[in-house]
């Protein structure tokens, strides 16, 4: 069962140019913070898992081409089904 994910835009104080963020909620729970990579990164415009909570806390955080891909990965992790294409923590 896929959890109900909602996104809330937010500005992030990363102390870098990457400040365009999204809080990701599963129901009432904050489960992840995504940030859009600014100029200066190889993957400009892609979304990086700045922080994940619980099952989304991984040692090698992934980057996604768009928010839809991020939501797909997050939903998979929360359902206990690892989404392909990322190196995941056990």
């Amino acid at each position, binding site marked *: 069962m896929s959890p109900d994910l909602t996104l809330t835009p937010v500005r992030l104080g*990363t102390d870098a140019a990457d400040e365009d963020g999204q809080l990701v909620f599963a129901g009432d729970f904050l489960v992840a913070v995504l940030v859009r*990579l600014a100029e200066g990164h190889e993957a400009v415009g892609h979304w*990086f898992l700045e922080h994940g909570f619980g099952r989304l806390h991984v040692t*090698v*955080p992934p980057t996604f081409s768009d928010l839809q891909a991020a939501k797909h990965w997050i939903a998979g992790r929360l359902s206990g089904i690892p989404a392909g294409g990322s*190196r995941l923590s*056990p």
Partner: protein
Amino acid sequence: MQQHTTSYGPPHSDRPPERHRLVRKLQSITDLTAEERQALLDLPMTVRSYARGEDIVREGDTPSECCLVLEGFACRYKLLPDGRRQIMAFHTPGDMPDLQSLHIGVMDHSVAAMMPTQAAFIPHTSMRDLTHAYPGLLHAFWRDTLIDAAIFREWLIGVGRRDGHERIAHLICEMLLRFRGVDLAPNDTFKMPVTQADIGDALGLSHVHVNRVLQDLRRDGLITWTNSVVSILDWEKLQKRALFDATYLHQVHEAAA
């Protein structure tokens, strides 16, 4: 995996000119006599070339030779079953990344080239003969492995307790002194062909975080890092940012800056 054996042509097929890096490396951490230096230069070796990313020695191998980095840059790493990689050490010319294979038969990690790299292979039997004939060299190699362990301890502190800026600045400080030790850092500039993902895998950081920190270090005028060439612009400030204390490298001879 392609692999080339380089021939330097007789009568010097086993005497590549870069073999002096081993002497230079050991002299950066201990004193050697003229006879010991010559014995190192006379070691038989077979030279092979590797492309970036190619394994030089693999986990599970049971080598009968020790490898010496002649030219290029190498790392020691280990993979978890799902592909996550931890890089545990970087190696400059003059280093023998699998010296341990002389006494520990099975490789418990792999050694890979980080750029086009030439490695010389010295038979274990020759290493044993050498250290029997020259006990001073036995102590030199022992000291080298102890310093290797000291470097691992320092990396452990980095991964466990240093923040991102400190970790990356610390790595740059360490590599400058190690490249200086083998005379490969003229004007505090050295070639370190690693990607941000490589640094992340070595220091336990995301490539995004590595990129942010490198941008900060450049903006603050501490380093430049362009096309794999690292230049230290403000050594004092960089050491401060890294909380760097060079004691753990146990270098005994101040190398030319």
